[in-house]
């Protein structure tokens, strides 16, 4: 699994767009980038996954530059309910992915 680095915490305000960047300098060719969200006292929840360029779903967008050494999770128009810890995971999710490791994540706090 590629080592990832992301900010420990971020603050923003309701209605703003929030971008959380994750560095993964030693990403391998077969690795995918996956983001999770975790609310207090709940299990992590899958948000989005991508390999290159841009992926968008109803929750977020994921931007991946050509060198894939970083990725940015973009949350449009956040609300108080987006306050959570966000985890960036990078790995080859094929049959060998038996050990899926979470890092320390980014604690996002949204203020009114």
């Amino acid at each position, binding site marked *: 699994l590629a080592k990832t680095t992301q900010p420990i915490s971020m603050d923003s305000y309701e209605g703003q767009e929030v971008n959380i960047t994750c560095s993964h300098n030693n990403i391998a060719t077969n690795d995918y980038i996956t983001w999770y969200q975790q609310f207090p*006292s*709940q*299990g*992590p929840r899958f948000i989005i996954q991508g390999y290159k360029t841009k992926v968008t779903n109803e929750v977020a967008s994921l931007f991946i530059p050509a060198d894939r050494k970083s990725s940015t999770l973009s949350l449009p128009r956040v609300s108080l309910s987006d306050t959570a810890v966000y985890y960036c995971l990078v790995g080859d*999710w094929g049959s060998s992915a*038996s050990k899926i490791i*979470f890092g320390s994540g980014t604690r996002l706090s949204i203020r009114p």
Partner: protein
Amino acid sequence: EPEVTQTPSHQVTQMGQEVILRCVPISNHLYFYWYRQILGQKVEFLVSFYNNEISEKSEIFDDQFSVERPDGSNFTLKIRSTKLEDSAMYFCASRGVLNTGELFFGEGSRLTVL
């Protein structure tokens, strides 16, 4: 929407007692995981399970821990002799499709060891 269910939601036990935490993964999933999260800390990998055997385990998963899938639907984590430091939230997760990092997590079982 299919979901992973865990029981009990909260268990209080005395140090040295055995605890079994139960999970029902999503029915067509093949890969199963246990994680734990000590209050205020990160989600820690314990063990993964596939084809009725352990695929990988962490250094946390010592001889006091065991997992099994006794009946094709339940997936259990047993702690033989609990310690104070086993107090944590334990999450079960399952994964159905290869080539995706999408794990489906249960709501967790909070274990308190006194």
